[in-house]
């Protein structure tokens, strides 16, 4: 690029009126031209400084981030566990109500008896006990009568 054109662009540059493309042209000129007139020499250093600064890099490491913040992960976990617990409870209650229940035949000493054979056996046991009690009572009455007769 001609020096006269560079001088025109530099005037615009110092007024803050150049485009990025024009600024690149100025930088390229100073970066590639060997014999620069003395009055333009300070600008070469200036643009070299800008280029040098642009090469600096940060040593920091970008942290890996979770797709969701910790509290959201925790909340999600708690929600999942709660939902599972509710489901299990619902299944338990449903199975308890839906299972076929045997009919109750009788109660013996407050205990439900649902088996027919056991009910008959319990009835016989109780009647047998009653029979024993009656026999005992009759024997007692007979003894009383004997004493009264004497």
């Amino acid at each position, binding site marked *: 690029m001609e020096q006269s054109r560079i001088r025109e662009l530099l005037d615009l540059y110092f007024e803050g009126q150049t485009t990025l493309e024009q600024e690149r042209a100025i930088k390229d000129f100073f970066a590639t031209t060997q014999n620069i007139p003395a009055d333009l020499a*300070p600008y070469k250093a200036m643009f070299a400084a800008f280029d040098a600064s642009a090469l600096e890099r940060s040593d920091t490491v970008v942290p890996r981030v979770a797709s969701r913040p910790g509290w959201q992960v925790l909340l999600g976990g708690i929600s999942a566990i709660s939902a599972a617990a509710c489901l299990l409870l619902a299944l338990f209650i449903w199975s308890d109500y839906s299972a076929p229940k045997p009919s109750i035949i009788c109660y013996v000493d407050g205990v439900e008896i649902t088996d027919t054979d056991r009910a008959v056996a319990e009835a016989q046991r109780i009647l047998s006990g009653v029979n024993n009690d009656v026999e005992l009572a009759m024997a007692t009455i007979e003894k009383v009568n004997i004493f009264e007769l004497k």
Partner: protein
Amino acid sequence: MKSITEQYTELILSVKDTVFRLAKTITASRVEAEDITQDIYEKVWRARDAVLNSSHPRAYVCRMARNLAIDCTRRRRESVEITDRVVEDGNKTVIVGDMAELTKQIISRLPEKQQAAIHLRDVEGYEIEEIAEVLECDQVSVRMNLSRARKSVREQLLKALKYGTE
């Protein structure tokens, strides 16, 4: 469509060195610039919705970095007296070969808005519109700050060159 995490990581990776360089220009300290860059990762993540939905995400991040760097510089100024650097002392050790380093030093002594403007334009190659968003001012103001910054650098470079060659 990219997830928020992917968008965040992509943005941070594209802007981390710019953030570092801008912070270094304003604070004139590599260590502080690294700290600011590290802080930015967390701050951008916290404000990810606002940042990623803004019209210029990288300008948004640079504005955050600039504010952190200004705070950092203010805190330092409160506790440490800043010593003058090279040029205004008429330091005669300045030679032409040091001009690139001297340019950086001159920029670090400019008013903060001019520092950010010249850095974002001449080092990072940002559009005027983006710089306006970073500096929170209009484009005319950006061009004015840019012009003043460039003229100051030129003036002080010529002055240093004159001292160095006498």
